[in-house]
């Protein structure tokens, strides 16, 4: 059964150095407050999983929390590059970052396999791409090793004989998501763009859910995903905890912030100052 605790306690108890952590939320409901708490608690050597690393992983990577990133699209949507991510990949700053990359369809199916208790998922995809082949030519410049310990392999359909693609399951130690609401028993409700959060929580050994508010009763919402309290480890109240992403019905996406992030993240100095002022200098979230 979910325990309702402070955000600081949830992160302390659920996330440890070296863990594999999936913070999901597809543009909507990105758990920024929880991400900042992980930075404040100076977790290290994390393997971070997320379809769209977005600003939240740019921040965690720049703060030196990550050893490896598993992802499918690492940009600032509609704006440009994630500069801290690029600096880590191109110049190993602040620490080297190993990467494992997929397509969105591949990542989504890897979560589905994890949630389903299966070792892999099957899809039509990757055929002919360099994501698939372990070695390929790089514009004639030589072999490109793409996957160390491949997570993408061909598989023959036992019924039709077609060649399809298998992707290995994702089974994180911890899933971290943000939702609109929970009740006092820790049942969690989210709606709007629900992304891959249900799959991420069900694929993970532990989970942390931050919420806009804790209410007495969860009245039904159209298209809502409900995660029963017994599937969740910790619930923490974090109003506006998705900012600059948003929580439908509570806030709107702060597009100006996404545009402004480009200049903050571009240089190590401005980023480090941002970290000091906006993360380390801010007290941990308490109930």
């Amino acid at each position, binding site marked *: 059964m979910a325990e309702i605790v402070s955000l600081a306690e949830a992160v302390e108890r659920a996330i440890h150095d070296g863990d594999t952590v999936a913070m999901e939320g*597809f*543009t*909507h409901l990105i758990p920024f407050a929880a991400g900042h708490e992980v930075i404040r608690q100076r977790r290290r050597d994390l393997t971070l999983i997320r*379809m*769209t690393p977005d600003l939240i992983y740019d921040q965690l990577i720049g703060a030196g929390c990550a050893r490896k990133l598993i*992802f*499918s*699209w*690492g*940009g600032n*949507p*509609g*704006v440009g*590059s*994630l500069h801290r*991510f*690029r600096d880590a*990949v*191109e110049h190993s700053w602040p620490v080297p970052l190993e990467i494992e*990359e*997929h*397509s*969105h*369809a591949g990542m*989504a*199916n890897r979560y*589905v396999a994890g949630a389903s208790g299966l070792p892999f998922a099957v*899809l*039509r*995809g*990757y*055929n*002919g*791409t*360099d*994501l698939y082949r372990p070695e*390929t030519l*790089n*514009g*004639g*410049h*030589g072999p*490109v*090793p793409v996957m160390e310990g491949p997570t993408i392999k061909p598989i023959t359909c036992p019924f039709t004989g*077609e*060649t399809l693609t298998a992707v290995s399951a994702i089974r994180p130690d911890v899933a971290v998501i943000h939702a609109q609401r929970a009740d006092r028993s820790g049942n969690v409700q989210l709606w*709007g*763009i*629900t*992304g*891959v959060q249900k*799959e991420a929580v069900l694929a993970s050994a532990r989970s942390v859910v931050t919420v806009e508010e804790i209410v007495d009763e969860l009245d039904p919402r159209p*298209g809502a*995903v409900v995660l029963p309290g017994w599937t969740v480890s910790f619930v923490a109240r974090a109003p506006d905890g998705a900012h600059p992403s948003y929580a*439908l019905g509570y806030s*709107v*996406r702060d*597009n100006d912030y*996404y*545009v402004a992030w480009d200049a903050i993240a571009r240089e190590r100095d401005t980023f480090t100052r941002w970290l000091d002022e906006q993360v380390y200098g801010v007290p941990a979230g308490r109930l």
Partner: protein
Amino acid sequence: MTSQVSADQAVTYTADEMMTVSAARALRDGMTCFVGIGLPSSAANLARATHAPSLVLIYESGTIGAKPAQLPLSIGDGMLAETADAVVSVPEIFNYWLQPGRIDVGFLGAAQIDKFGNINTTAIGGDYRNPKVRLPGAGGAPEIAASCREVIVVVRQSHRSFVERVDFVTSVGYGSGPGDRERLGLTGAGPKKIITDLGVLEPDPETLEFTLTGLYPGVSASVAKERTGWDLAIAAEPEIIAVPAPAELDALRRFQGMRARSHQ
């Protein structure tokens, strides 16, 4: 691209506006369209605001039939969910909607594209572990390129981005030429048009190599050749594409004005 082009006395427009209008015209009313963010999203929304009011816009965030009143910055802006006919999960949008070939057209951008329409959005230069430029990666594009009934690519044309062979195949066009899509089991027909800020490229029916078939007024074929990294073939008589109509420009500028204001 901010240079003003004035092809006739009546209309002044930028090369980017011409490209977006040209891309919007490629969409027919009633089509279902899987939309990438950036230029493709601008063009798809322009089409819906002008000649294609029943165009079904589908974003990879799971929003099906989105009807945004202004251009979204991301594929997951709240107004996409609030105006959609249906909102589904991310596994569902890829597995139930895209993969079976239900969607007419995929609208993609590119960082690098080659003569067979293969797209690179992963990395440029150096090698994979130490790239000169690390790009965002695949996102939804590989399966959009594989499974939509056809694909349209919108990208600014330059010698650097239009290359003989992409450094990394993120999304497959025609692979190395005829027969490759079939051999790879890709169910969609592949890229039918590359729409640039100079004109339109279409695959040669025999070789599937992209050939210049359309030019904007005032753009010469020799400029298009200069801005292409392979030996670009030119159609016998490239179509001269009509300048943006006032209604098209008005609608596009209204969208862009709204977004600029919302960022102030």
